[in-house]
């Protein structure tokens, strides 16, 4: 068994409540913990879901592990390198290994660029492939995610949400990453498209061994795709375990509350409205 591709140890990140200089001078501006004492690791080919309600700190964790923001304390080790000790140049050299997919594909692809250019762009920055090789790779990747070469010349506004999310996945794959942070990647997609994209992410993981940090507020979705789950509340991981442990044997009251709120998806097993009576 290989070592973890990503290791987070005791991450803390605070923000000041009020960032204007005036309130800073007045003092009394207490820091708010966005992330507090967060530790986890992630192995190649594994999917760790970070779940929680809005404001729980899920996306902040995503930003920290990608080195997009620096923790106040704690360490992120990516592929054996402690991100906090490396300079900007070294960090840039590590970037191809870590990618991100966002919730809203309309705003994550440049509207002025064709989809083909967006997919090729990381290779211009991170590789010394010739132009022809880059384009050949873009076509291959677009095919892999289920888009024909006809999509190369299209602009984001000419494509559907599902197609765009496929393009965003193709773009994330260009540099053969070891880690992809997926921040609510299917939340904006319709049910029939959602399954296509989830299936694609799973197949790609099988083929390439990429690890996913899967950020989601939707526990029913997490049950489908995750190997392990970290439940966050108010900046802290309150419970962590395999998907079976979390769903079948939750220990924390907060996890239980979240699980109880999931619809049953079966009208014969309704529970959300149980006991509602006229007031």
């Amino acid at each position, binding site marked *: 068994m290989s070592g973890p591709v990503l290791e987070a140890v005791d991450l803390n990140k605070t923000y000041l409540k009020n960032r204007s200089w005036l309130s800073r001078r007045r003092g009394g501006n207490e820091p708010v913990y966005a992330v507090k004492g967060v530790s986890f690791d992630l192995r190649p080919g594994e999917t760790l879901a970070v779940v929680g309600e809005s404001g729980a700190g899920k996306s902040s964790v995503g930003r920290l592990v990608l080195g997009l923001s620096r923790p106040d304390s704690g360490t992120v080790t990516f592929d054996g390198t402690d991100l906090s000790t490396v300079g900007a140049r070294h960090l840039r050299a590590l970037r191809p290994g870590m990618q991100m997919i966002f919730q809203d594909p309309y705003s994550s692809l440049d509207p002025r660029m064709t989809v083909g250019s967006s997919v090729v762009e990381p290779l211009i920055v991170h590789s010394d492939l010739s132009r022809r090789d880059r384009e050949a790779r873009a076509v291959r990747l677009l095919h892999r995610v289920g888009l024909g070469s006809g999509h190369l010349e299209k602009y984001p506004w000419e494509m559907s949400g599902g197609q765009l999310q496929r393009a965003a996945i193709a773009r994330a794959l260009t540099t053969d990453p070891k880690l992809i942070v997926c921040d609510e990647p299917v939340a904006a997609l319709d049910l029939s498209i959602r399954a296509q994209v*989830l299936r694609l992410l*799973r197949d790609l993981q099988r083929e390439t061994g990429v690890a996913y940090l899967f950020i989601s507020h939707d526990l029913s979705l997490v*049950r489908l795709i995750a190997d392990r789950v970290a439940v966050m509340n108010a900046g802290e991981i309150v419970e962590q375990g395999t998907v079976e442990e979390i769903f079948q044997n939750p220990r924390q009251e907060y996890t239980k509350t979240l699980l109880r709120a*999931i*619809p049953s998806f079966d*009208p014969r097993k*309704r529970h959300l409205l149980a006991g*509602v009576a006229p*007031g």
Partner: protein
Amino acid sequence: MEGSALANAVEADEAVLAVENLSVDVKSDRRTLSIVRDVSFTVGRGETVGLVGESGCGKTMTSLAIMQLLPRQARIAQGSVRLGGQDLTSLPRRTLEDIRGQEIAMIFQDAMRSLNPAFTVGDQIGDVMRRHKGLRRAAARKRAIELLDYVGIPRAAQRIDDYPHMFSGGMAQRVMIASAISCEPKVLIADEPTTALDVTIQSQVLRLLRRFQLELGLGLVFITHDLGVVAEVCDRVAVMYAGQIVEQGEVVELFERPQHPYTAGLLGLLPLEGRKSADLVPIPGTVPMPSEWPAGCRFAPRCPHVEEGRCAAGPVPLEQLRVGRTVRCVRHEELALEGVAR
């Protein structure tokens, strides 16, 4: 559900809302597109009817047509919307304004943007009651506080003077619900009311809606793409695809024995307990744009059960299997589609 959850569809004359053959046209680039076609359903007192479908299937246009709130480019091409003996499609604007808010109300997905940011929530809820119930300012304010308290907003007497941006998403949704039920309407149309909310907040809002329904005998039209919510709250369901109802029935029956391949396809994608992503069978392709809707069965290009020559032959009628159970598929009798297994 206990109470009103009788499986039978309500006869049109005892329904609080009866939509019949409703069609909506939209003008685009000199062309006229039919984006909602022949939609019919009824809602009984205290009943919850789900209008389900993916984006672009026409469910929001249907709800706006019911409310007579269609955008300018769209118009009702045919059909009727009967609410307590009146056909809303034939009423003058003045009368409609009396009815909306009083007899029928609507809540939307994005509560924050549906409330006016320039007025306090108390003013907005109070306005509805002053307009429809003729309450004086002080009485409206008092009633607005009661309503905010009733929908579970803490410290209602103070919060009534707050502006919408001072509320969280879930609290803003409660404010909108308070406003919608302030005149005790007979029918409430809820368009994706919990889609933007966290699951814990979603279940609170759903329970709140259920409580009003039990108290007021409210007929609820629940518009959503989320079959999990449908399974939890609806008595009956109409599944829409590409502007048409493709299947309609009582919720347990529809989940157990879907008759339309699209419904069966959606059910196969549900994140049921014990399912993994590998168990999901994706529906190939995407929902087509209205300009590309086929002349025959509109789902045929994506359907795993399509039969050459038969499915694309011409428009497929909505067939009534029995009262309240309809399906739009030429092959429904020969297909044994899988539902949600017991």
